């Protein structure tokens, strides 16, 4: 009996915890995010508005009704807050700056208080809230069900909001007295804080146990595909929706970013610690998934790597090369001024150096390991060899759909990857900012895909002309002195193939090619024009094969 009861209770508790957690998240995103933005704007304006501000904190629907009451509460709280800060007499700028720092935490506290209330309302108002009680048993069935519950709860946040308001009143009443008895109120507020913290700890703990259970449950319920890390991501991404739309309305992302950091710090911290652990145990970490992972890695860097030597490598930077990576390691990390005969020599030197000095530790953070410049076989081999060293830790992100194809078995064993999914949906702002940049020299080489795309938009005759040129170039690929096909010969060939009927039409076609950078013309020593396709022969062969398949 007893045990059954307990187990039942346990289950109930779990369920409620899940709900809380999500409600907490939800409220934090929705209100916390919005609030801070507003607040930031207001901080710049004047004092009155700051005092009024918490009205927005509470439910806006009930705003009119409770206006007066809230106003008083807020006043009281504000005074009390300043008392606690020890700067009651100080008005003006100091307070603002102080508050500016403090507010996010207060928001979190407030939100966690709010988050605590629904549970109470559930347990006390069981009858008034039939829907929720129905949800609970569903919850215990499986994870997918609990997701539904979260959502329902989310939808009902307005509905539930009555309870928080009641609680707030209760909580704030003692504070209201604080005008007269400052000491008492101080202790009281500490209590409050304690409660809030407890609540937070509680939820944290629950998250842990929930994770464990989720792991256990994976076996039985294939539907729920979540694991702690992923779940974390997912939670985070749910924040990102809100963040996203805020970003949409006003392109400043900075503010909401801040809240995210505050709210998820604990969870992220745990994740980062795990990464550090795994890195130290000889694994390397690779992040994949839609959305820029730069911010995540940056945060990892700023939280965990402050005291370590680390190198951040922007793979998306068009001028990046393995040589420059190795150079920055030898010159800046190891303070070596000499030069090396080749990249491999340099690599050997680095490897020896790191093997000799076992106390040396280096973290490599590579954004976009799969970028154009680094995806080559040799580059990957070198980076892989670096990462296989015991005291070099690599954490990288990949974005390309086919990025894993870069690595064969040998490289994969060098890298010793642990994969982490990080779908963030954030913009690739930084990563794409170098595209078509004037500061960066474009290599001018055309990959196969663009070649196909351009050619597809042309007439069949133009394609035929181009094909002729390709074939001629491929026939001559073994000739080291090949400078191109002379215009006259080309014209002759085109005429024979019934592709053009006059000198002029061919020239018109060629202009088109030239505009797309498909061909280059050169004047030979004899003053004749020679035509050349500035694409390497491998690509051309591929292209021809593809063409033949299609037509």
């Amino acid at each position, binding site marked *: 009996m007893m*045990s059954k009861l307990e187990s039942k209770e346990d289950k109930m508790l779990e369920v409620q915890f899940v709900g809380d957690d999500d409600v907490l998240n939800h409220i934090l995103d929705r209100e916390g995010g919005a609030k801070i933005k507003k607040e930031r704007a207001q901080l710049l304006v004047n004092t009155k508005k700051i005092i009024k501000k918490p009205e927005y904190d509470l439910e806006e629907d009930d705003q009119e009704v409770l206006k007066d009451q809230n106003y008083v509460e807020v006043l009281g709280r504000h005074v009390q807050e300043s008392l606690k800060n020890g700067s009651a007499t100080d008005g003006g700028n100091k307070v603002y700056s102080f508050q500016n720092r403090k507010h996010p935490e207060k928001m979190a506290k407030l939100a966690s208080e709010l988050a605590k209330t629904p549970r109470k309302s559930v347990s006390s108002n069981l009858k008034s809230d039939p829907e929720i009680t129905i949800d609970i048993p569903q919850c215990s069935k499986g994870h997918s069900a609990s997701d539904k519950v979260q959502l329902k709860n989310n939808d009902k946040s307005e509905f539930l909001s009555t309870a928080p308001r009641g609680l707030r009143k209760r909580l704030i009443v003692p504070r209201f007295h604080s005008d007269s008895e400052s000491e008492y109120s101080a202790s009281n507020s500490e209590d409050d804080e304690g409660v809030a913290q407890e609540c937070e700890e509680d939820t944290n703990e629950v998250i842990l146990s929930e994770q464990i259970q989720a792991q256990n449950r994976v076996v039985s319920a294939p539907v729920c595909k979540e694991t702690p890390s992923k779940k974390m991501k997912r939670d985070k991404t749910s924040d990102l929706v809100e963040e996203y739309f805020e970003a949409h309305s006003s392109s400043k992302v900075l503010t909401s970013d801040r809240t995210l950091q505050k709210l998820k710090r604990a969870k992220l911290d745990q994740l980062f610690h795990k990464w550090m652990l795994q890195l130290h145990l000889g694994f390397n970490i690779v992040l994949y998934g839609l959305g820029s992972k730069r911010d995540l890695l940056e945060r990892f860097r700023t939280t965990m790597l402050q005291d370590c030597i680390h190198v951040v490598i922007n793979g998306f930077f068009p001028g990046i090369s393995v040589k420059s990576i190795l150079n920055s390691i030898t010159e*800046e990390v190891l303070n070596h001024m000499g030069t090396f005969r080749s990249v491999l020599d340099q690599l050997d030197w680095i490897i020896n150096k790191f093997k000799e000095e076992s106390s040396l530790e280096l973290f490599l953070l590579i954004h976009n390991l799969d970028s154009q410049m680094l995806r080559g076989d040799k580059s990957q081999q070198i980076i892989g060899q670096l990462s296989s060293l015991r005291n070099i830790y690599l954490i990288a992100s990949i974005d390309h759909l086919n990025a894993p194809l870069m690595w064969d078995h040998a490289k994969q*064993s060098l890298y010793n990857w642990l994969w982490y999914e990080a779908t963030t949906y954030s913009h690739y702002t930084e990563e794409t900012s170098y595209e078509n940049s004037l500061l960066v020299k474009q290599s001018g080489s055309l990959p196969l895909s663009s070649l196909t795309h351009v050619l597809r938009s042309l007439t069949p005759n133009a394609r035929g002309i181009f094909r002729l040129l390709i074939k001629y170039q491929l026939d001559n690929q073994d000739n080291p002195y090949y400078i191109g096909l002379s215009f006259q010969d080309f014209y002759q060939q085109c005429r024979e193939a019934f592709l053009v009927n006059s000198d002029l039409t061919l020239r018109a076609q060629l202009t088109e090619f030239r505009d797309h950078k498909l061909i280059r013309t050169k004047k030979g020593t004899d003053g004749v024009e020679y035509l050349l396709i500035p694409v390497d022969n491998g690509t051309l062969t591929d292209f021809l094969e593809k063409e033949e398949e299609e037509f």
Partner: protein
Amino acid sequence: MATSSVSKGCFVFKPDFKKRKISVPIEDYFNKGKNESEDSKLRFETYQLIWQQMKSETERLQEELNKNLFDSLIEFLQKSHSGFQKNSRDWGCQIKLREIPTAALVLGVNVTDHDLTFRSLTEVLQNNVTPYVVSLQAKDCPDMKHFLQKLASQLMDCNVDVQSKEKESVQVTQKKIPYSMDSLSTWYMSVTQKTDVKMPRKKRTPSQWQSPPVVLILKDMESFTTKVLQDFIIISSQHLHEFPLILIFGIATSPVVVHRLLPHAVSSLLCIELFQSLSCKEHLTTVLDKLLLTTQFPFKLSEKVLQVLTNIFLYHDFSIQNFIKGLQLSLLEHFYSQPLSVLCCNLPEAKRRINFLSDNQCENIRRLPSFRRYVEKQASEKQVALLTNERFLKEETQSLLENLHVYHTNYFLVLRCLHQFTSSLPKYPLGRQIRELYCTCLEKNIQDSEEYASALQLLRMLAKDELMAMLQKCFKVFKSSSEKQLGNTAKRIEEFLAQFQSLDAEAKEEEEDTSESQSKGLQKTDLYHLQKSLLEMKELRRASKRQTKFEVLREQLVSFIDSLAREYLLLPETQPLHEVLYFSAAHTLRQHLNAAPRIALHTALNNPYYYLKNEALRSDEGCIPNVAPDICIAYKLHLECSRLINLVDWSEAFATVVTAAEKMDANSVTSEERNEIIQYPLKSLLQCPSKHTE
């Protein structure tokens, strides 16, 4: 310090003063961000201990498995080199001297493991045969020049170890020597002469060898350019009399490849002997056998995890290294995520640790599902005691843990025994390898499975000598373990053996009987009688079959095995406290080891609801929710017309989708707003095509 710049892509960060980077002990990462109270330090230590043991065990296994191969290789090297030693003038030897002794080492496709094998091979050779061991990889040697350069520099390095004084001069000269076979052989002569002088003093192991051979290992023979190989072989065969070269080819596919790569003229210069390394599957079996199917390591894998690991092995890489890595990861995850894993150590230590468990940990024990189930089965006062009294709980936990260990010893013995019986049945209903049997046993109650039933059916049809052989093996299994628990069983098996043997004599007598009756029956020649007697004989035989002692005994044996399986091969999930030892988060493992980035991208683009969990995003096939992230909308529009998309059309469509929900007339959108909207897909556009044009 910013990490973006238009002029450089690498940013080095060094902490201000060097002393600050005193590295944080790894344990800190293990317990940070979690509750401190849950013995995390102890857990981490236990993890490291177990991992070290497992690692050294696997290394030992590797060595053991390679030993045979290496021994025969060494023998081959010594034998083939003796010709050079003797320097005999005999014609046969002269001919043979033209041929480079070559060992073709077929290693299998698990390329990642080869490195390790070669490393230990080099070591073994250097210790036993010759100091001059060089290994080359195809990617270092695109042409002859590089090939010789690498060869020479590695050879000289080998030599440098011997004469460290000359290190400097050698390194200086290294850059200047034009590498050729000539220079190599002169170098070899000078070196061997020198070492000859030194030899008696230094007491080199193969002291009887005046000129140690040069062993060249080509790690991946298939990927070498044929031209380089041919040239090298032809040249070096010319120099063989002064430069005793022995080749070792590492071959991943099949030995035929040597002849495919080299024309007859070249391959006739080689004197090839084939060596086959142990197949990786057998290797896996031994590793599993020694790491998991043993009570030596308390850590165990659940069925799903084992499946994931073996599947990665069998369908992806055949790499033992990766398998071990997976094992390491699961070990780490287990200790990281399960607070009670602190008890995952050997029994006496675990018992000691139980006494020091904190209240929190006791609570954790009570929360274990398996423990809860166990409590529910107890009498009510015991339940109360278990749930309230810490001391009682600890005692109970101790006994439960002990039971768990006993369960494992019995389990593995019976498993092996059953494997002996089922591994050679026709069609292998329960698998050939013990790991397959183990997997089925972990997955469900084996006696309920069809395969088990059919296996027993087949056992009932086996002949006596087969059964005897199995029994013998089984008996050995039981004997090899010193455990007392199943002593009875061993005795039973011995009895069975004895009974089967005693059957022999009786059987002979019976046979005589039947032969007599047969001869009697054949005396009559008329048809009717013949038929009648045949019928009689048939009936007689059937009757006698039913009564044969052998059959009775066989029936007994089968039911005995069945009872063993029923009694001991219980599911681990039924054991209380199994969570302490079993790691079951198969999904985490798969996600980290065998991720599917393609699927993740696809889901993120097509079904943002999966990640964002926003009700508004839940949509039917084919329609585009306007609140979805821009990139998803852009992607779906892109799918509509994926070949050559008009940028303006695209952004127009995008604007329509986005603004539709805001109940705004597209015309009323100011141009500024529209511009802003359009900007987003443009940004994502740059990333998008690169993703799905391929």
